[in-house]
């Protein structure tokens, strides 16, 4: 397992650090929010990310990507987490790209090319209820003519309203709760009987809902093998959770560092508040937890790249740990900032909001603790 970055990775990380700090800092998120930007992301930024190779970080070279792997994607996500950057990276370049590259077919290849080129946003529609529950999928796809007809509702679909296509997880067989019978479909935004609703979220990042009222797709819209989508899904969710963990690491670390900087300046009762030992111990504990988090994230990301059989499990473990610790970083931050932290003027509240969303996506800490126990047979 790679717990240290190699030279390429270090360089990528530094590049990403500079890029997002300059091009997509927190002020950019505020701008998107305060101007009620209709797209909810910057197209110019996304184009630049494509040029840098970021959009195609997981796309095979044959389709114009740089194919650098999960560790690279995680390093990018970490920096986006630090800057709360709002981009279609996670939906498109992580979730959908992983789904597409694990499905054969020309359609998949065509969309991978568009992703790498920054020409298409592809959302990944999996969740249906209040909590993440992939096997609970109820959306149905029934044979219809040469193709399929899809009916169901999807929530928490990141970048739904700006997506050119959606990858929709639906049942071609089996019952909710079962692993068998899941299939993945590519649904273009122009499809009939498809309603897309943008939902404005607490973190001011893009999300939405899909209503599929008998959406007709042709046979080639089926990605991979009918009824065996769960295997592809494992890869998508494994990569997704590991990358979300990396983004949580970035957001949590940034919240922590800004908090430490603040308590080094703020005075109360004639003392710098960072002099108070109670705060020092809490900060030191959090530092330690964040160090554990970094190890967990690196392990989860590198396991994917190494094809480790435990990769999906590690991703879940990292997600459990990161959700918990990043939340602690946000909560300690908001408390230590005190009154000013409650104002919209300071950034710590934005971190609190973003971390709440990130930790919920693709399964929260409780979900993954339970999953971990099940995985280990207890």
């Amino acid at each position, binding site marked *: 397992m790679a717990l240290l970055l190699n030279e390429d990775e270090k360089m990528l990380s530094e590049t990403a650090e500079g890029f997002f700090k300059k091009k997509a800092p927190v002020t950019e998120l505020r701008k998107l929010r305060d101007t009620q930007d209709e797209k909810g992301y910057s197209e110019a930024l996304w184009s630049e990310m494509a040029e840098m190779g970021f959009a195609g970080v997981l796309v095979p070279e044959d389709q114009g990507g740089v194919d650098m792997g999960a560790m690279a994607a995680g390093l990018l996500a970490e920096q986006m987490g630090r800057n709360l950057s709002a981009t279609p990276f996670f939906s498109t370049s992580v979730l959908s790209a992983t789904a597409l590259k694990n499905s054969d077919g020309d359609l998949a290849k065509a969309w991978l090319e568009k992703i790498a080129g920054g020409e298409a946003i592809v959302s990944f529609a999996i*969740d249906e*209820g*209040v*909590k*993440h529950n992939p096997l609970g999928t109820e959306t149905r796809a029934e044979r219809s003519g040469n193709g399929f007809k899809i009916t169901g509702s999807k*929530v*928490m679909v990141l970048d739904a309203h700006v997506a050119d296509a959606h990858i929709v997880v639906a049942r071609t067989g089996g019952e909710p709760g079962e692993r068998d019978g899941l299939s993945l479909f590519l649904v273009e935004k122009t499809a009939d009987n498809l309603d897309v609703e943008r*939902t*404005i*979220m*607490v*973190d*001011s990042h893009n*999300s939405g809902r899909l209503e599929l009222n008998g959406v007709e797709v042709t046979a080639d819209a089926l990605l991979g093998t009918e009824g065996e989508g769960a295997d592809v899904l494992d890869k998508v969710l494994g990569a997704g959770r590991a990358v979300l963990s990396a983004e949580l690491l970035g957001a949590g670390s940034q919240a922590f560092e800004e908090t430490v900087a603040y308590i080094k300046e*703020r*005075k*109360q*009762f*004639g003392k710098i508040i960072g002099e*108070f030992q*109670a*705060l020092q111990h809490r900060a030191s504990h959090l530092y330690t937890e964040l160090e554990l988090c970094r190890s967990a994230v690196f392990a989860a990301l590198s396991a994917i790249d190494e094809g480790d059989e435990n990769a999906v499990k590690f991703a879940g473990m990292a997600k459990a740990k990161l959700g918990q610790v990043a939340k602690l970083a946000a*909560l300690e931050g*908001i*408390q230590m900032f*005190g*009154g*000013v*932290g*409650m*104002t*919209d*003027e300071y950034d710590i*509240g*934005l971190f*609190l*909001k973003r971390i*709440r*969303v990130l930790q*919920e996506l693709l399964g*929260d*800490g*409780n*979900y993954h*603790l*339970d999953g971990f126990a099940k995985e280990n047979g207890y």
Partner: protein
Amino acid sequence: MSDLETFKLETRAWLEENCPPEMRTPMKSEDDACWGGRNWTFASDAQKVWLERMAGKGWTVPTWPKEYGGAGLSRAEEAVLLKEMARISARIPLSSFGIWMLGPALLKFGNEAQKKEHLPKIARGEIRWCQGYSEPSAGSDLASLATKAEDKGDHYLVNGQKVWTSYADKADWIFCLVRTDSTGRKHDGISFLLFDMESEGVEARPISLISGKSAFCETFFEDVKVPKDQLVGEVGKGWSIAKYLLTHEREMIGGSGEGVTRPLHEIAAGSIGLESGKLSDPMLRAKVAEAEIDEWAFRLTMQRKLAEAKAGASLGADSSMLKYYGTELNKRRYELMMDAAGHDGLEWEGERSDEGKLARDWLRTKANSIEGGTSEVQLNIISKHILQLPGA
């Protein structure tokens, strides 16, 4: 029949006759409250009539003396009145920092002229007050406030800035801590002033919070002239009035979780459902059970401390304990509610989420452990006054 029994029957009859039907439904939100004041627009005739009738009886401030607009009721009679109001779900006729905070302070520390001038207007809802305590650079260290009031013979000249002044943009008058002396110990040299928010040099700007809408303001004072007879108590002795009011506030905030009655497990079950009779998320189930038992033990502790206080013991620093635990517990409750609400809880706008009500409420709870003295300050107080640890 006892006097109290007679009072109960009379009260019931009067309420039956005088409380408009519209005022007998629970308030749906803070927006339904009546705050009164010079610029108040009544939401309905019923709201206006209800306030006037209650104020006429002295029942907006039932235990205040009659000469100051109250009804001179005993605590026991007040309890009867509140019970009878609750019986018909009558709304409180007037929400007011004047009633909750300034009134008690004036009754204790004000001179006769001040009481006569201000208390009846508070009782009738004619003047709306706000509180000028916190300052940007002071924070938890309230006593290090810097807003200066210079003695100019017949008036004070006030310069400085307050923050977290609730509804300062809507209030008519402010009760305000100012520094009249900066040479000695910081707790000395603080004075307690009252003045009109329409005075020249006063400006209030609402603060935008992480939860969005906010009643809080930043308030600026530039060469504001305040007549000297608007000083409450002695010059330089304002800190004791402030402390008196802070204890009041702490108890109010510590108990703020009290009214919330819907059990967490019902909320959670409503959102994520049960499987074989158990919450479908076993890990959340454990945390909910733990929180519910803590809520039970906390409610009991509130009751016990109140009972002790009634029995004559002073609540003292135990109010810090209640404030600390109550606010931390309420934050925990909202974290768990957010966990249970999952994706739905993350919405910020739109009808489905009632404009992000849960998310905004959740964010709002983060202030619980900051306002009215941070959790850290409460723990310091317990260390010092209860455990008597050295150097605390």
